């Protein structure tokens, strides 16, 4: 009854083109933001931050980035792990080379560096399409990981080949290194996550997003109506890599603290982020969040049930977990190939009619 447009009059163009046209949606959005910013930091503890909230926020940024490329522009990429590694290493080099600059700017700059790398590896997309492109992006994945492993300059010639995040603070509050508080790291990531969602949402409904979607739906037709494919594809690669790079930088500096590149940013990472947007829904910002939440929560949930509930050995539980994850992905694809976002849309359509469906 409360979820409908009726009675919600727009009197200015601005009101007419806002992100959430339905009043209830808008208030729900403000409420979620208020809870995330004002309530959660007071109740958060280390377990919740490290097991659920930080990975969720960081993966959500990465998923938004990949969604722009795959969901909005239709260019399938399996190089996410490699681009996240670029973000992480760029952030590390910046942090150690310019210790006086605020880490906030380092993370942003790491995003820009990744955007540049993304554009270079995106160039072949002008010639290669579909699966061929997906496999071609694997070149980025393997080459970048190899590069960070082999050249000592990237990890400052440390003996272990790992990179460790030095202690840095924002407004005097420590956000990286070993002496952080859960609420500080959480808020730091949350700011980036909300910023990424806002930017992505507004980019995708503007001119840029429309050219991306035109390329996705049919690139030749898009070219004929005057979309410049070079510009559209390169901006998609740049914006996507920017977000993925920011996610990588946060993943390294705030979440893990110490990173070994093949382990943290291997091919598995690329697949996990791709799963998120498939399960969440391609071409949807909400879908990126839903997918990230699903993939982050599922292993935690299964572990608690199988190991904690039944008391099974961890290796048996780990194998079962893989099977269940695989099975769920297949089930999801069969039941709702367009992801959780499509599911959510159906619910909203139903809600608008409720309680008088006829």
């Amino acid at each position, binding site marked *: 009854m409360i979820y409908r447009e009726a009675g919600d009059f727009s009197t200015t163009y601005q009101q007419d083109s806002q992100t959430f046209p339905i009043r209830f949606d808008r208030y729900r959005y403000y409420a979620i933001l208020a809870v995330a910013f004002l309530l959660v930091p007071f109740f958060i503890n280390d377990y919740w931050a490290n097991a659920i909230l930080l990975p969720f926020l960081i993966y959500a940024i990465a998923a938004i980035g990949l969604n722009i490329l795959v969901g909005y522009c239709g260019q399938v990429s399996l190089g996410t792990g490699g681009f996240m590694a670029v973000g992480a290493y760029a952030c590390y080099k910046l942090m150690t080379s310019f210790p006086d600059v605020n880490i906030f700017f380092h993370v942003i700059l790491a995003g820009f560096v990744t955007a540049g790398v993304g554009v270079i590896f995106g160039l072949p997309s002008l010639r290669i399409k579909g*699966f061929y492109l997906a496999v071609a992006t*694997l070149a980025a994945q393997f080459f970048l990981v*190899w590069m960070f492993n*082999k050249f000592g300059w990237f990890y400052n010639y440390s003996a272990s080949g790992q990179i460790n995040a030095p202690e840095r603070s924002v407004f005097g509050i420590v956000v990286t290194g070993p002496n952080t508080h859960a609420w500080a790291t959480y808020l730091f990531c949350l700011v980036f996550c909300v910023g990424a969602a806002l930017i992505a949402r507004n980019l995708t409904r503007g001119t840029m997003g429309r050219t991306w979607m035109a390329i996705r739906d049919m690139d030749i037709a898009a070219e004929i109506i005057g979309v410049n494919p070079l510009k559209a594809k390169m901006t998609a690669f740049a914006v996507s890599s920017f977000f993925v790079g920011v996610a990588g930088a946060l993943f390294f500096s705030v979440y893990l603290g110490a990173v070994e590149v093949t382990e943290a940013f291997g091919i598995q990472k690329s697949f996990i982020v*791709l799963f998120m947007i498939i399960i969440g829904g391609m071409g949807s910002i909400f879908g990126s969040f839903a997918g990230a939440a699903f993939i982050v929560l599922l292993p935690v949930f299964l572990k608690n049930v199988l190991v904690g509930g039944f008391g099974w050995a961890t290796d*048996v539980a780990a*194998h079962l977990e893989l099977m269940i*994850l*695989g099975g769920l992905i297949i089930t999801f694809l069969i039941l709702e190939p367009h992801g959780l976002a499509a599911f959510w849309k159906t619910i909203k359509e139903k809600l608008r009619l409720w309680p008088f469906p006829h």
Partner: protein
Amino acid sequence: MPDQVLFAMEVTLNGLMAGVLYSLVALGFVLIFKASGIFNYAQGVMALFAAATLVGIMDGQVPFSHLINAIFGTDLHHFGWHVPALLAIVLTVGVMIVLAWLVQKLVMRHLVNQEPIILFMATIGLAYFLEGLSDLMWGSSIKTLDVGLPQGINDTIDRVTFDAFGYGFFIDNLDIVAAIIAALLVIALMAFNQYTKEGRALRAVADDHQAALSVGISLNFIWVLVWSLAGFVALVAGMMWGAKSGVQFSLSLIALKALPVLMLGGFTSIPGAIVGGLIIGVGEKLFEFLIGPMVGGATENWFAYVLALLFLVFRPQGLFGEKIIERV
């Protein structure tokens, strides 16, 4: 002849042998892609699953023993018998056919007419599932696979080349056997495609699904058939790789190695898979030998992909792929 040239020749020969093994995996991909348009990422994990099943049956392991022990508190592990290799292979082929039927029945049937990317994701899901299943059924430890294939340096080649050049080439017997088996497999597949009724039906389906349906070919049967064939190819690949480096998780990563092979050769061409495999095998070994030491080695990790990427920029459909025609 100077030593460098001889080394390079040896490296090339070894690269050819490695390339044959890549081709074996790529073949399974091509079979399924041609017949159903599905890009089967699970091919590598199928090889792992097949090899693990083969070892499990040969050693008489109790399937799911870890799970059963965890639930019922029993202590099962082995039946206590050993199955001869040939019988075990036949049984494993049976398992792979059942698996193919289940995949068709439970997964692919429900995804007909979906976009290729959705099907691709489903096979990734399948890969996760099979990986978990394989570990759960047979345990995740590294197993040695011994089906009686010869191993170690081939003395004849060593002696002959030593007499001719004063330097003996090191070539593994297993690689030679693998090359012969791969050649036989390709000839058998070609013959099957060309001369049997099922093979003809398979080609018809690959050409046009609807037209094939309309002349009375059962798509369901054909798809079970190609998945079984792919399962069989996976078993052969799993046996070769398993005998070479043990049956373990890294076996499933050969799927990733097969991808650039496919891109180079074209997704739809069986000869393409072979030639692509050889090019990649030789290319990455030679590159590692010549350029590798200058950039710190381990270039094998990425060389194949970068080669395929550069190649595709000039010829987007691969070497033997069907020409991509785009219409609006």
